[in-house]
């Protein structure tokens, strides 16, 4: 019998014992993952909202009235070649007026009164590449556009962009912190369970050590137990979360976790389970054998 075959047999033997306490652990880990998933679901939807807001940030460059329409379009072409620019849209004087009338019909009369003395300026609307939609990127690009000949003013959401950027940054930090806290809690739940399992199987651990089983051979079944518990707990938690999400969809519109995050949660379950098991069994203590091995 090869060592791997023996290990597989030992692991199956190990997992096949104590179905009652294993079920309790599975429920505990699943519930912990429901909390984790709820947190992830809320934060992911909020993050999407904030991200959408950031992506809608654009620079509007007003052009000098002296520029002809073809000069304005040339300028737009020039801006479209700049770093960080995703797309450029040239708004002519006529289109600007049409837009004004369509968007602010109550002010339409004002425009009629001023016609002849004042015309809305032509402009270039610049949307940004991902990665440039932060305060620093927008500010530097706006300054570069403002420096071009024929541009009178380049504006962006100066009044709200800094706040939005800070909020997104703080939110991401909070996300990482709370995510870590929840992952550690789950690992500790698994660790506690594996420790109980190790105590219940202390005779087996002791005998394995006495007959010369290497540390990894003794620990592997516990790590397999922890990993499987984590994986099953994560899947169970996702299932419960999906049902809850479906039930709440009518009241609060939101999207469920995308496949990328779904599988991340499953992998996280396996990883926290494995880490918990290693913490629970405390490698190094097994090598001594005897009554003090765990």
């Amino acid at each position: 019998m090869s060592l791997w075959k023996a290990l597989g047999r030992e692991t199956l033997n190990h997992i096949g014992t104590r179905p009652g306490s294993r079920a309790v652990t599975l429920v505990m880990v699943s519930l912990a993952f429901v909390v984790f998933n709820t947190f992830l679901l809320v934060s992911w939807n909020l993050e999407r909202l904030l991200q959408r807001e950031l992506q809608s940030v654009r620079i509007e460059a007003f052009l000098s009235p002296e520029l002809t329409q073809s000069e304005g379009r040339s300028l737009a072409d020039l801006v479209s070649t700049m770093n960080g620019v995703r797309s450029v849209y040239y708004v002519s004087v006529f289109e600007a007026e049409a837009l004004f009338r369509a968007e602010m019909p109550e002010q339409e009369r004002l425009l009629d009164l001023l016609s002849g003395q004042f015309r809305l300026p032509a402009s270039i609307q610049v949307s940004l590449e991902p990665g440039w939609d932060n305060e620093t990127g927008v500010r530097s690009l706006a300054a570069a556009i403002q420096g071009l000949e024929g541009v009178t003013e380049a504006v962006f959401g100066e009044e709200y962009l800094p706040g939005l950027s800070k909020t997104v940054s703080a939110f991401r930090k909070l996300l990482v912190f709370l995510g870590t806290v929840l992952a550690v809690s789950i690992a500790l739940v698994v660790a506690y369970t594996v420790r109980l399992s190790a105590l219940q199987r202390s005779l087996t651990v002791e005998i394995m050590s006495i007959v010369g089983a290497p540390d990894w051979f003794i620990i592997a079944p516990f790590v397999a137990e922890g990993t499987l518990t984590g994986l099953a707990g994560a899947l169970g938690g996702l299932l419960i979360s999906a049902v809850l999400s479906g039930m709440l969809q009518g009241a609060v519109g939101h999207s469920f976790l995308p496949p990328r995050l779904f599988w991340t949660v499953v992998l996280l379950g396996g990883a926290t389970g494995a880490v918990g098991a290693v913490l629970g069994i405390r490698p190094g203590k097994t090598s001594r054998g005897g009554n003090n091995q765990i």
Partner: protein
Amino acid sequence: MLIEIEGASRSYGRWPALDQVTLQVAEGEFVVVSGPSGAGKTTLLRLIWMGDMPDRGFVQVAGFRSDMMKRSHFAMLRRKIGIVFQDFRLLPDRTVFDNVALPLVVSGASGRAVRKRVFSLLALMGLSHRRNSLPHQLSGGEQQRVAIARAMAAHPLILLADEPTGNLDPEASARVIQHLIDINRGGTAVVMATHDPRRIPPGSARFLFLDGGRLTNAESWQDLEETR
């Protein structure tokens, strides 16, 4: 020397279990360590299989020295030592065959080699008909013979027996002792701890007396009686 203990002391709290013990055991030797309960016999054996380490001095067994042990060394050392306990320490959910096979399985022996060795040992111990039984279905004497078979499975250099007859009736004890003597005649060094050395036939072993953690030599168990 197969086992070399030099000035080894071990205390548990303020209680000295072993005090400056020095002992040498050669290959193929049979050593009986006797002494009253709490004398330190089990501690001495634990130091030999390095289930515990000395506070002072050192223990060297089959080339492994207690003050130079790395984690991976423990498993390597244990494969050179077979251990028999008073309470048998068999895995209750495994058959006799699986219990005896354990040391071979964890060292990665092939299935064929495992079967061959286990069947041979079970035949030697008169347990062939019990190979599919669980430990709780066996008598104390049978369980102890399973434990001896397990201890011998990986062809150890040393067999440690900690009160192997402590839970057995006289007939089963005699049979276990005879097995230990036969094993020793086969070339395996045996170190046996017992509170009752009279079961060992004179001339078949070296006798040591341990009391209050201190070790003294004796020629036979009769000498031990006089020492007491």
